[in-house]
Each structure stands twice: as C-alpha cells, then as structure tokens.
C-alpha cells in the first residue's frame, strides 16, 4: 500500500505528457484519435472511493483539455468514466474472485482486461466524441469515428500495459 501514491502521481504525469505530446500529434486521420490517458483512471486501485475516482478522473480529463484546447470536454467524459468504474468492475468480475488491490493485466488476465477496457473506452470516447462534434458529423460518421478510435486506443493501451506492467507472479516463484 505504501507505493500507491507515488506510482499513481508518476503515472498521471507520464500518461498526460505521452498523450498531449505524442498520441494527440499523430493525426493519422480525422476519424482516428488515439487516447491513452484513461489508463490512469482504469489503473487506480480497486478500493479507491468513488468520490476520489471522480475527482481524479476530472483532474486527468481537465489536464488533457488544458493542453488540447478543448476545455471541459475530456473532463466531462473522464468524469463519467470515473463515476461508472466501480459499477463496471463489479459487473464484469466473477463472484468470489480474489483480486489484488491494483488492476494488473497478469493477475486478472487478458480477457478480463479486454472487456474492462472495451466498455470503459466506449463510455469515454463515445461521450467525448458526441460532446465534441455537437451534431457536426452525421450519425454514421460519428459512430465510425467512435468505433475506429476506440479499437485503436484499446489495442495501443493494452500493448502499453504489457510493456510497462511487471508480472508479480513471476517474482514469487
């Protein structure tokens, strides 16, 4: 429990910088955005109280907004994700499963993480793009944009998780 604060603070700033300096500068296609900052929200310990989740999500979202010049939009979307995260976790977790405090891709497994990230990114990016476009695109293009961006973001995020997560089980053996 001792390392929870520093590790999350470091993760906050690293993800923020990676997002605004790299992933938001790729500009591959106007229908394709890559967002990795939700990893911060999804990696917070399971026992984080809901109000703290909401506050931290909002902070992350507004920080991203601050750099991308879209003040409030990522904030609103991230806040929604932070609010719904405890429900999401309890719905997709099998009853009686004994989880560690922190979400870890080696502990919960790739299937659990794939579902966890898919639903979470759909909530976040779906709400973000809906807010951002304000009816500018027609519904078809909006759905295409959400699906394309969500899929790409999930793949890149899970790849990053594998790169930067240590397998705790390996240490025990």
């Amino acid at each position, binding site marked *: 429990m001792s390392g929870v604060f520093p590790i999350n603070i470091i993760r906050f700033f690293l993800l923020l910088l990676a997002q605004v300096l790299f992933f938001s500068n790729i500009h591959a296609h106007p229908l394709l*955005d890559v967002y990795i900052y939700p990893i911060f929200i999804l990696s917070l310990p399971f026992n984080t109280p809901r*109000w703290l989740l909401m506050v931290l999500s909002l902070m992350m979202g507004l920080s991203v907004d601050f750099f991308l010049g879209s*003040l409030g939009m990522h904030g*609103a979307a991230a806040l929604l994700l932070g609010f719904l995260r405890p429900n999401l976790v309890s719905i997709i977790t099998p009853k009686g499963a004994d989880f560690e405090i922190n979400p870890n891709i080696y502990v919960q497994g790739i299937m659990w993480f794939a579902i966890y990230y898919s639903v979470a990114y759909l909530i976040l990016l779906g709400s973000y793009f809906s807010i951002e476009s304000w009816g500018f695109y027609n519904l078809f293009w909006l759905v295409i944009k959400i699906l394309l961006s969500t899929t790409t973001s999930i793949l890149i995020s899970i790849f990053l998780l594998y790169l930067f997560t240590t397998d705790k089980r390996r240490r025990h053996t």
Partner: protein
Amino acid sequence: MYNLVRFLLRFWLLILFLSLEGFCFYLIYQNSKFHQVFLYNKANEISGNVYLQYAASKGYLSLGRVNDSLARENAFLREKAMESFIYLKNEEHTITDSTATKLQLFTYKDAKVIRNSVNQSANYIYIDKGASMGIKEQMGVISAKGIVGQVVKVTEHYSAVMSILNRNFRVSAKLKKSNFFGQLFWSGKRIDEVRLEEIPKHVNVHVGDTIVTSGYSVLFPENIMIGRVRKVYAQPEKNFLEIDVQLSADMNSLSHVYVVNHLQKQELEILDSAVINQAKK
C-alpha cells in the same frame, strides 16, 4: 437508520457527479466560442511554452523537408510579389518614377506553427507570433502551398488561428478558369478535402480545375491557391453545384506559415460603413 445513511451516501455521490458534470458543461459552453479560452491568458502562455519547446525539438527531425519547402516557398514569394501591388494610373500626369505608381496592398509576416490539430471538428493552429509582432485578429494565414486559416485570437507572443479544417471557417473562393465564385468550407470527413458551394449549375466544372481565393475579402490576396476539384455533384433538386476540393496545403505537416496583413483594410472598412449608412437612409 443504517439504510437511510447508505441511501444518503449514494445520493451524495450522485449529486457530486452531477454538479461536476455541470461544471464541465459550463466550461464547454464558455469555451464554445473559443475566444473565451484566451481569458485564461496566463494558462495559455504556459501551455504555449511547453508546445514551443516541443516544436523546437521536433523541428530538428524534419530539417531536410523544411529546407525543400522553404526553397519552393522562396520561388512562390517571388512570383507573388507582383500581385501584392495594385497599379495607380493617373491620366493627367505621366509618372516616370516607378515606385510612385504602385501601392502596396499586402505584407506578409512569417511565423512558425507550434501546435496544430486536425482531429477535432473545430481545429485551431497556434503560431509563435503575437501582438508584440504586429499580429492582429482577422488576419489571413497562408502557407507556401495554399491557404491555412484566419487569426482569431492574439496574445502577447502567440496567436490562435482558426484552421480551414474548422466547422466555423468560411471563405469566398473562385474557379480560376471561369471566375465564378462561391462559399468554401470544411465538410469534416477528410483532412485534405473541403467543400465549395454556390457555384451555378450552368458552369462547366471539371475534375482537376484549380480553386483559388476570390480576393473579395480582406483576409487573402486574390489568386492564392486553395486546391483542385476532386468531385462534382449536381443534385437535381438544387440550383447549385456541390464541389469536393482537394486542398493543396498539407494541413497535417504545417511548419512555416505567413500571416497576411491587408494594409488598406481600414480604408475599405470606412467605405463599407459608408455604404451601409447609405443603404439605411
């Protein structure tokens, strides 16, 4: 009693959630005109600085490409120089001094792009020149390859440019061949494509025709390249053509741009207001 407390606790979280969402939407509403974001002047100077450092380090990686484009830009400017002038002819005198016969209409200030976005429905570009270098709102911005946008907000050292890839951007454009003009705006589907409308149906438009600025606004000089016709739609229920235009400027890899300053803008505005006053009477 315990249940009541638990209920209130859940209720309290919902209230917190809704009020924070309300705060976010208040920010979005405040921000929707974009101008207001610059009320946080200091904040933008900070993020502007971060982006400036980032652009400086990124600049090294593309020096070769930038050199090429600068050489091409020089050629382009040489070509353009004549078009920056209008010639004053006076029948009563024969003027021998060649400098006295022309009046400069446009000056250009070069600037570096420090932040560019193309993925939103309202895209903006930040450049590293601001009020201290004489940049003002409502100035046009072009690159060597074509038009880029329009300055919408200026701080001391930075300016925000509404990109052509912005749902609020409108510019008057014409077909170079036939001089018919219409409204040009972004359709939002691709970053290399804009839409030209209000061209009458009887006009012959072919794929590959050049679209340039009309010169009717004070934003851009006449005949600045915008792009080429990619596709023409003639819908039977409409009187006008809808034309997809492939942008000549690569909005994705902008690094050097020019801010256009119309020197006779005030004079035109005086004329404008005089005409409007005349019409009111």
